[in-house]
């Protein structure tokens, strides 16, 4: 059996309720946010006025006493592991996704173009990993995504995932796979710039030319972030560090080609992340995208 997404969300919903007052997502300009790292909750509450929104990679822990106040102060985006859309989601996974969205009530929910565990559930990579770009996988992603979006009742954005090596059997390029997927489903594109920069780097491509092949007109949200050398890969990979100047510049270049864009999120989710790095990264992103911090309206 396939691995199921993690802890059930229903108790969380029961604990914190679904109808508390929550701030609205910014509509009049780009929203600049980051991920919710629970160990930095106190810093976010005391110094986080420059953070417009928070992406939720995990459900709040049962002993997270800061979360109720976080939810009252920041608009939240569901960015959890909802399930592997290469396969049909179980009833449990669908129910969990709907409960999480009822808890966060963001303007959209996110998933990834990934296929990381075997159908029998015996092997898992426990890390984002792209599917084969084939007609069969396109059909599977389209069908399973429609079911998820319908069940949850919220728009869905999908994030691109880089490959480190190439696999035979691909029938189309990643940009073509994504373009056709977005056209068939109407989903938005969550474009992860470090992922594309890495893919271009390892394919020895010019990043701007490479990114230009993707359906930028579908972009709703941008992820920016940092990269660091990894000993096993012998080169750069995503890391919870400050976004590089080149990645921020690529993000700004995408803005000019993305009329539906609403949010930029600094993709940093790690227990090792410090408050200084988190706030500096958000500030660097604000400056790069020309967005000034606004006074926060509390609920």
């Amino acid at each position, binding site marked *: 059996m396939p691995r*199921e997404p993690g802890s059930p969300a229903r108790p969380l919903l029961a604990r914190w309720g679904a109808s508390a007052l929550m701030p609205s997502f910014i509509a009049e300009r780009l929203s600049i946010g980051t991920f919710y790292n629970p160990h930095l909750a106190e810093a976010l509450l005391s110094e986080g006025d420059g953070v417009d929104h928070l992406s939720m990679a995990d459900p709040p822990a049962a002993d997270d006493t800061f979360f109720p106040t976080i939810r009252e102060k920041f608009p939240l985006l569901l960015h959890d592991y909802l399930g592997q859309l290469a396969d049909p989601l179980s009833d449990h996974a669908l129910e969990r996704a709907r409960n999480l969205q009822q808890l966060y009530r963001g303007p959209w929910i996110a998933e990834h173009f990934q296929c990381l565990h075997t159908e*029998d559930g015996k092997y*898992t990579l*426990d890390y984002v990993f792209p599917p084969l770009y084939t007609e069969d996988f396109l059909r599977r992603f389209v069908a399973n995504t429609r079911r998820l979006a319908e069940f949850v009742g919220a728009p869905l954005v999908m994030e691109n995932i880089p490959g480190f*090596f190439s696999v035979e059997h691909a029938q189309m390029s990643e940009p073509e796979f994504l373009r056709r997927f977005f056209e068939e489903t109407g989903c938005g594109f969550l474009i992860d710039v470090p992922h594309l920069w890495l893919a271009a780097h390892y394919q020895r491509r010019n990043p701007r030319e490479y990114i230009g092949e993707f359906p930028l007109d579908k972009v709703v949200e941008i992820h920016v972030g940092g990269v660091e050398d990894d000993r*096993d*890969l012998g080169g750069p990979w995503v890391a919870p560090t400050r976004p590089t100047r080149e990645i921020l510049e690529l993000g700004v270049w995408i803005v000019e080609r993305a009329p539906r864009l609403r949010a930029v999120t600094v993709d940093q989710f790690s227990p090792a992340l410090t408050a200084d790095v988190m706030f500096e990264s958000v500030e660097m992103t604000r400056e790069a995208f020309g967005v000034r911090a606004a006074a926060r309206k509390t609920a």
Partner: protein
Amino acid sequence: MTNRAVQDEVIRYLADASVRAQRPRGAPISSGEAAKAAQFAHFLARRYYRDRLARSFRYSHRLRMQTGRIAEEVVDGTEFDRFLTECVMGSLESAQRVGEMARAHLAAAPQPGPWWPELLDYEYAYFLQAATSEPSPRLEQPTRGVSAVCLRFTWRLPQMLLRLRAGVAIGDELQQEATLLFSRTREGRIYVVEVEPQLENIFLAVDGSRTPEQIAAAAGVVVEQALRALAVLNAIGAVVMVNPAH
């Protein structure tokens, strides 16, 4: 072979070092990409076990100023490099090997207290749950969860952990026996629960071949009691039952 089956082959290739050893140039990874795929497999495994060690050995991590060591350090050692060429990510056997590396690494540190070895046993058992995603076999009769384990401690671990979290000294008054059952559900939720001797006996009587009636007899309880206990153990992943309402 379907596209989905090909994808499964790729995942197996990355997760299981023995598959890579048998087919260094096997489909669907072309010979030109095999070295890069192996690099990526090592990256995945090192990342996976570093993360699980950090989550599981978090109380010993709090004592790093006294011990000078943390569990995650083992993933940067030469023994771990050898392990990368043999491991199956998510298997119980791999979790046991990495857990033993961490326990031995920390056991060699200056002991912050006489309870130190038991704290390491607790964290090792927790790590087995966190790092084992291998599904449990689904047999006709109740069987134990693949990583589920029951351990007897001479220190009251639950209270000890609270004190470690609060930075409070651990006194001899906590030197009392406690039996803890560690388990993981199919959804990946980890449970550590204190169990009475009767529940421990029922858990230990489960072997994949005994019927609930035989489990009850082996544990010295009536069948109704055994069935209720098995349902509880099934809910926390300590026991796997094809038909929980047996």
